């Protein structure tokens, strides 16, 4: 028994070692595609929120956009003297679980936190947790304005506007005429709003929108699925000149599809939610543009909302608009700074 268990054990350890060697699991991506270690959190003990404990119930780990929101939020709260813990909506198997958000909120209530911020994955799924926080008298805030949740305050994402900005900018790159389409994603409120905006933006830019975004979705939210969907779009619309996609992975898939279909030099592609990977794609000419919505600023705006509530201001379903981002093309890509260089990323604890 021992003899034949040794080999799998060794293989497992080797795989783990390999993985650990090459990762930035304790760091953040830098401009060169490498990683740098996270800094220790520095809480200003004299800040206006000194001694306050804020729980952030985030979506999933390892998502650059969510990391940005969390880092912006933590930095600003720490500056005000509050400590922030970040937990995720994952189940015991580490899989995304809509119900887990309620559990995290209830754990926060039991710990006696001073405020809870959450990134709802689904408005209905998180509603019991929101109601529990309200019943406990703990201010609760949400990123996004979803599903009529009764919260202390919410940060509304300018999704339709970013879609419109992306569509209009891409139409300009494409010459303002010809056919364009939109590759959508999983039907969440913010993606639907962004897609609506993209259609309007493309049309405002002079393009004729073809295809049905409701039936052109990357339902697996990964690059290979986007590649398959984009292939169908390219085939159905051989005269397509522009394609807006909803996020970074979809851009990677659409670029691969365009290349395989031999239309890479004919169709321009733009993403409504870009990451550093997309900037590299703009630099190598495979992507026309990327909308950078600067999650750090979103996080800071949310911290401002929390501070107002904890400073005694009476807030009830207060809605704050998140700031607009910026479109990067080959003309201004040199100005782009990765989020990790705009602000020092810190270690955010998972408990108090």
């Amino acid at each position, binding site marked *: *028994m021992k003899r*034949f*268990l040794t*080999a*799998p054990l*060794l*293989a*497992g350890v080797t*795989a*783990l070692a*390999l*993985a*650990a*060697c*090459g*990762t*930035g*699991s304790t*760091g*953040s*991506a830098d401009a060169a*595609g490498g*990683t740098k270690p996270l800094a220790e959190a520095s809480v200003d003990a004299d800040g206006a929120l000194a001694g306050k404990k804020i729980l952030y119930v985030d979506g999933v*780990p*390892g*998502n*650059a956009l969510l990391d940005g929101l969390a880092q912006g939020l933590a930095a600003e709260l720490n500056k005000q003297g509050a400590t922030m813990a970040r937990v995720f909506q994952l189940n015991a*198997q*580490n899989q995304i679980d809509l119900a887990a958000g309620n559990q995290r909120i209830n754990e926060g209530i039991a710990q006696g936190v001073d405020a809870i911020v959450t990134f709802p994955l689904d408005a209905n799924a998180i509603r019991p947790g929101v109601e529990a926080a309200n019943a406990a008298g703990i201010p609760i805030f949400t990123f996004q304005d979803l599903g009529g949740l009764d919260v202390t305050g919410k940060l509304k994402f300018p999704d339709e506007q970013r879609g419109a900005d992306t569509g209009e900018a891409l139409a300009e790159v494409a010459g303002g005429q010809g056919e364009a389409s939109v590759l959508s994603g999983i039907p969440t409120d913010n993606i639907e709003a962004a897609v609506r905006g993209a259609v309007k933006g493309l049309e405002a830019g002079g393009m004729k929108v073809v295809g*049905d975004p409701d*039936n*052109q*979705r990357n*339902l*697996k*939210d*990964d*690059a*290979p699925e986007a*590649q*398959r969907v984009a*292939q*169908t779009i390219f*085939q*159905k619309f051989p005269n397509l000149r522009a394609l807006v996609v909803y996020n*970074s*992975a979809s851009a*990677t*898939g659409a*670029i*691969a599809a365009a*290349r*395989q*279909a*031999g239309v890479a030099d004919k169709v321009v592609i733009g993403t409504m939610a870009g*990451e550093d*990977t997309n900037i*590299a*794609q703009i630099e190598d000419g*495979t992507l026309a543009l990327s909308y950078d919505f600067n999650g750090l600023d979103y996080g800071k705006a949310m911290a401002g909302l929390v501070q107002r509530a904890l400073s005694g201001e009476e807030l009830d379903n207060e809605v704050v608009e998140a700031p607009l981002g910026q479109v990067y093309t080959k003309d201004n890509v040199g100005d782009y700074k990765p989020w990790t260089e705009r602000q020092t990323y810190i270690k955010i604890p998972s408990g108090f």
Partner: protein
Amino acid sequence: MTITQSTTETSSVPEPVVASGPSTLKQQGLFFAIVVAMFLVALPFLPQLRSGPYLMVQLATYSAVLIMALGQTFVVVQVGFDLSTGAMQGFVGGLVFLFVGWHLADGLVIVLSLAAALGIGVLVHGLLIAKGKMNFFIVTLASFTILPSLLRVILDGSSKPVHSPALDSLANGSVLGIRTPVIIAAVVFGLMWVLLNRTVFGRNVYAVGSNREAARLAGVNVDRVTMICYGICALCAGIAGLLLLGALGAADPSAGLGNEFFALTAVLLGGTRFSGGQGTLLGTLLGLLFLIVLSNILLLSGMPQFWIGAVQGVVLLIAVGIDRARRDA
């Protein structure tokens, strides 16, 4: 007493119940006719299907899935299933990202990545299932969760561009108008076909799948056959991973997930039985062609995307049900 067996001793191995006998060939001929008929019926309505370049793109896109399905066929024929092939496909992309980051030569990157996949298949899956007597579902389910997790660790959760000229040309090149993934899939198909149909090992795979105990008594090293089958399956998933990475130009944290079921659907549609001992690589190829034609018809005809998975699932049930009823009759 332990029975060991050299490759020259296999004359005592019983003939497989069904490998590629006349009835199987007839069945596959019928299946091929159905695929062709579907394609021809759709042609007048979907002009896209008349485009040679489009069809070539489709074949290139699904070449990776075909390779994965070929490996899965070995495992299913010997009675089993590797749930982790999609995860392995993505994981190999992560390994390539690591190795390229270490500035290793492209050739070495490919060899090391495939060696890692093969190693996991033989030394983890095969060994734990054959020697450790662990259930194949449990072992590969573990890999199904471990490999994507490791991949996310390697990639720090987000997709990373990978610049590898060799993989780029493997996935995106063409020779005499034929896309290289199609050529690679054809070569893999040829090698696997010879292995399964023209070697002692192939006969042993069918023998083990038909009756494990009888095969053991006949002198087949059953454990070795099982281990090699899981190794072949993982290796094929690794090759599929290289093609996917090359096509995307990036390692993606969720790459490959879900493809294991698509590949398995092709295997089962092709007539390979979960109970083992029966099935052919040609059947798997036809099963995948059927799915490709069906998917294209559904997508190009504008069927609501949410329904496509349901249609594919129902088609699988119907096809396997008809096959079962025919065999029981």
